[in-house]
């Protein structure tokens, strides 16, 4: 097991860009975890004069927004919101996607037809509009945004899982399991899934990046939870000041860009590490 992990780490590290991405992700996670210690007060509190530029005041290293709230504090707490929504939405999407994809491929026939048409139904609705609709119906709560993002992003995972399952379900080891009298669920999730998982994990890591973008878009449009700090909301609030105090949009924009880029790089690295054969090809 240990040698396997080391092997995995070595393959991951061979991709330099992935290492940079990994370092950035660790940094974002670190900031998110350290937020309550770095900024002990409520990040949405008005603490100073509005529109103090970054690097001007030592109390507010990243400046203040149009209301006089500390941008550094909002970025740090925003990292928590963003990562929480990203990871939870990705988990939701992965669980739905794997369940639907695995069931469709394993049972085939009319179950497959039905589930795939159902998946296509979701794929035909424009993602962002679907997210906005769900949030508008359910309400502006962080949980609902997470669910909404999860609901619109599971379809590629379902299709990928299905494809993997299709290629594995008639292999000899599966037939051996059947011959041994294993139950369907045990074969699906105990035997086939571990073999189908690597590409799905790669895709799930990319879904996190997508979820971060969705959350930012929802908050930018003012439909996010106003009780928590969010990068997208900060950009939305600063939009009217873009001609005079552009840093209010630029700082969280940079945070979103770096995080999404880092997550994509990590996804690439995972791809290399989990599918080594694909890489050498």
């Amino acid at each position, binding site marked *: 097991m240990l040698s396997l992990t080391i092997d995995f780490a070595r393959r991951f590290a061979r991709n330099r860009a992935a290492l940079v991405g990994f370092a950035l992700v660790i940094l974002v996670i670190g900031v998110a975890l350290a937020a309550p210690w770095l900024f002990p007060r409520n990040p*949405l509190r008005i603490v100073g004069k509005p529109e103090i530029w970054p690097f001007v005041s030592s109390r507010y290293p990243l400046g203040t927004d149009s209301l*006089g709230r500390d941008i550094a504090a909002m970025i740090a707490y925003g990292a928590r919101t963003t990562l929480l929504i990203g990871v939870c939405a990705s988990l939701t999407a992965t669980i739905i996607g794997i369940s639907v994809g695995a069931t469709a491929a394993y049972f085939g026939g009319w179950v497959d037809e039905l589930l795939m048409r159902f998946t296509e139904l979701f794929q035909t609705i424009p993602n962002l509009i679907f997210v906005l609709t769900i949030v508008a119906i359910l309400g*502006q709560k962080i949980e609902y945004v997470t669910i909404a993002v999860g609901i619109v992003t599971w379809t590629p995972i379902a299709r990928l899982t299905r494809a993997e399952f299709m290629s594995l379900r008639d292999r000899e080891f599966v037939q051996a399991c059947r011959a041994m009298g294993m139950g369907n669920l045990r074969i699906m999730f105990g035997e086939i899934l571990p073999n189908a998982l690597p590409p799905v994990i790669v895709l799930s890591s990319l879904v996190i990046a997508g979820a971060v973008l969705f959350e930012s878009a929802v908050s930018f449009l003012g439909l996010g939870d106003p*009780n928590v700090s969010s990068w997208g909301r900060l950009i939305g609030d600063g939009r*009217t000041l873009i001609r005079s105090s552009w840093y209010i949009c630029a700082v969280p924009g940079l945070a979103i860009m770096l995080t999404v880029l880092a997550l994509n790089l990590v996804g690439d690295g995972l791809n290399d590490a989990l599918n080594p054969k694909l890489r050498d090809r």
Partner: protein
Amino acid sequence: MSRFSRRDFLLTTAGVVLASRLGSSAALAATPKRGGTLIGTWGGFEPQSLFVPAGGGSSPYFTSTKVVERLLRLTVDLKFEPVLALSVTPAPDFRSYTIKLRDKVTWHDGKPFSADDVVFNAMEYWKPISAGVSLVTLEAAEAVDPLTVVLKFKAPVPEFFLKSVLSGKAGLVIPKHIYAGSNIITNPINNTPIGTGPFKVKEWVRGSHVEYARNESYWNPGLPYLDKLVIRWWRDPASRSAAFEAGQLDIGTFNPIPYPEIARLTAGGKFIAETKGYANSAWIATVEFNQRREIFKKREVRQALMMAIDREFISETIFFGRAKPSVGVVHNSNSIFFTKDVQAYPFDVKKAASMLDAAGYPVKGGSRFKLSLVSAGWFEENVKMGQYVKQAFEDLDITVDLAVPDRATSLKRIYTDYDYDVAISNNTGGVELVPTTTQYYTTDGIVKGAAFRNATGYSNPELDKIVASMTVETDEPKRIALAKEFDRLATSEAPILPMVDLEPVTIVRSDVRDHSKTADFMGESWAELWLDR
């Protein structure tokens, strides 16, 4: 060809008048010039229809008033001026009014305008559709002769009140020969309205703009000065600001651009920020306490929460100085009914805290109580106000759950479902307080589902009585005294109070002249606007 010769004729006449009247060159510069195209917009979106007979908000009001006129108009210094009516005179008992109409006025389709049109409007349009409760006592309208109409009422009607209705949003005069026998609200002509105004609808390109052509046979000869008027819509304040700078926009009413952009745009002298012209559509930002909640039935709690809000901060930081802390219920620009003699709510967190302690809501386990705060998401400033007020209440150790829903959900939560503890909303009222302003406080304003009415559920027989007297008091000084009494009572009761009085801004190119001369400039015909180019 005849069009050109006519224009030449008008120009020559203008020249002769000018030469005979004026000598100095300074006065010459102020003489209106004919011609040119003006492109205007407002700080909102395209209307659902160019004319919405039942109201429909500011957008259709803006597009229809260039075409459809009223009997009177209200100037910046709050005097009534004749438009289609030459005079509106009350009988000694104030139960009937005689309206003398302007002669030789024609509709855009060439048919003459007459007393029959006004009778039709009074009985078929204003009373049942546009004016609502304002004209409930209107009993009959009679055409005495082609240019005289008498309006008869069941009860005495104050002069200022009636003239406000006639010059207000509800008093548009529509042609009888077009609308008689049809459903006024759904008549397709509302997309290309016909009126007596200085401009005719030429073309409405949906999603982009509406173009108006000059009404060559307008009753006021020489007017309008413009050849063409275009109202164009932008979806975003920042893009309006860019359009101004690119020379694609001449005038924008009602906060067309982001507040922080105003200083930058007006700095060069090419653009002016004008605050006049909004007295009859005065906007406020309100905080409303839902009386259906046990906590807010106590007046002390409402007053304490008012004192916890630093309204200076809202004016300066959220509205960039384009708002003033409200004094009472009446907007400070209302020079007739405004009074300073009302209960004040200075920003005082300590006093607010002690008032809450005394009212039986001490801090227990870190929190006095929990409340839901709904800030109506139709203005960007409301988002910030919601966040600020949440913090202000949290400073009193109140747990606050903030929501900033979109427009439709906000209307539903505040005015239909009453699903809020404290709401932040906006409204606009005219100089006349009855019924628009008073309906936020009176019992008859509680109408489930009716937007911008009494959503708090506040009911006080004493206040209802004052407002009832205001609707029938015809002696002007006594009526003003009643209005101030209403203001005092409503302000000290505080079921819903304005936090700040907004000061909307018109952004206009400096070579556009004679704008913002009426109490509701956005809803004026713009016949007198001219371009000094």
